[in-house]
């Protein structure tokens, strides 16, 4: 069991060197709300980030934010500020910090932390209303999805 696991890990590390470098949610370090280091060691994919931004089961960022470039997707929210020009206002490091855990940048913000898996009050198992086991919790977005969103946000320049 253990040997196959190690072998598989070696094979995977061989094929996808970046996988070994994923930063776990608890290991992310914030400086003034920003995260300097890529969570995957790889650049994000802006197209994939666009999908995360607009999909209900994923980031669903437009539930709260208006984004002119995403007007093909209906119903943008007004809970957060418009993200037009976010790529000018913030560095990639800051955007990474905001997406991973906006509470580090904006104290007490309503914006959910997308890359975190502990410290919740009564966490549920997705949208079932049932209790989740704390150890089974996954962050709302994967490290790669966070990087993809960051890459997309960087395209929002005016």
């Amino acid at each position, binding site marked *: 069991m253990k040997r196959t696991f190690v072998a598989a890990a070696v094979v995977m590390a061989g094929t996808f060197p970046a996988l070994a470098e994923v930063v776990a949610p608890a290991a992310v370090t914030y400086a003034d709300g920003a995260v300097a280091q890529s969570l995957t060691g790889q650049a994000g994919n802006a197209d994939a980030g666009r999908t995360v931004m607009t999909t209900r089961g994923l980031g669903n960022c437009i539930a709260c934010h*208006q984004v002119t470039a995403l007007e093909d997707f209906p119903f943008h*929210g*007004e809970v957060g500020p*418009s993200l037009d020009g976010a790529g000018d206002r913030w560095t990639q490091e800051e955007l990474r910090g905001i997406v991973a855990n906006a509470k580090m940048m904006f104290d007490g913000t309503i914006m959910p932390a997308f890359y975190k898996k502990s410290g*919740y*009050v009564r966490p*549920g198992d997705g*949208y*079932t*209303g049932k209790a989740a086991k704390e150890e089974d919790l996954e962050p709302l977005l994967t490290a790669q999805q966070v990087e993809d969103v960051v890459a997309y946000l960087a395209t929002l320049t005016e």
Partner: protein
Amino acid sequence: MRKMMTSVAAMTAAIALAAGAASAGQEDNLVVNEEIEIVVRTDAPAHMENVDTIYSGWTFRSDETQALQMDDFDNPGMIFVDMGREVFDAAAGSEGKSCASCHESPENLKGVKAVYPKWNDQAEEVYTIEMQINECRTDRMGAEKLKYNGGDMTNLVALLASVSRGMPVNVAIDGPAQSTWEWGKELYYSRTGQLELSCANCHEDNYDNMIRADHLSQGQINGFPAYRLKNAKLNTVHDRFKGCVRDTRAETYAPASPEFVALELYLSSRGNGLSVEGPSVRN
């Protein structure tokens, strides 16, 4: 405009909204059957710290949805009120009594819905109207309890709401009810689930804003039970709580739980001064 918006884009959206809102009758007044005047906006009660004016959920709904509540013939919730009348008149249990045996007519209970949840001296706890109904059944009728969130119970609650329409919600929050009220308040402001959202995040900080396709209201409960076009049935207060808590990706409390009773008392008190409006129509 009710609130300051943060960015220019939000301002533009808000202006579009306000324009839409004019046609959606956000400033309109609700008179049911051209007879029952419903207070849909008024000064917030003194115990509300962060809100000046309270609004019924009706003011946030579209023209079409609003219209359905203006006439009982159009209000699909009234069918359930009629079904509630049948339950009211049906004898049940070892004593062979119905609600009507003691209370004569539902109209005799006008005003009751406006003051529930309410402290019950004998039980030494805050009672919702459902709890009171079930106590009548077990202690006075010798009958089984009705399922707290079931059809018969909800129809009865809709009936009792309907006869109180137009009366101001006026729940007591002091005296022995105070600790329950405070617990409800704490629950209202607790950020739960993986999205870490509290009731207040959506219904106090962001009412009148859009969250995706939904126009956020103050989450008032003066209109409950509410007929929702979405699921074409009467929805209870506790079912609504459950849905909203679930949407924060949290473990919900159960209908009839002490937590939801406390939350119901607290939320009712945030609507003190609005009219009883149930059964309301919502989307």
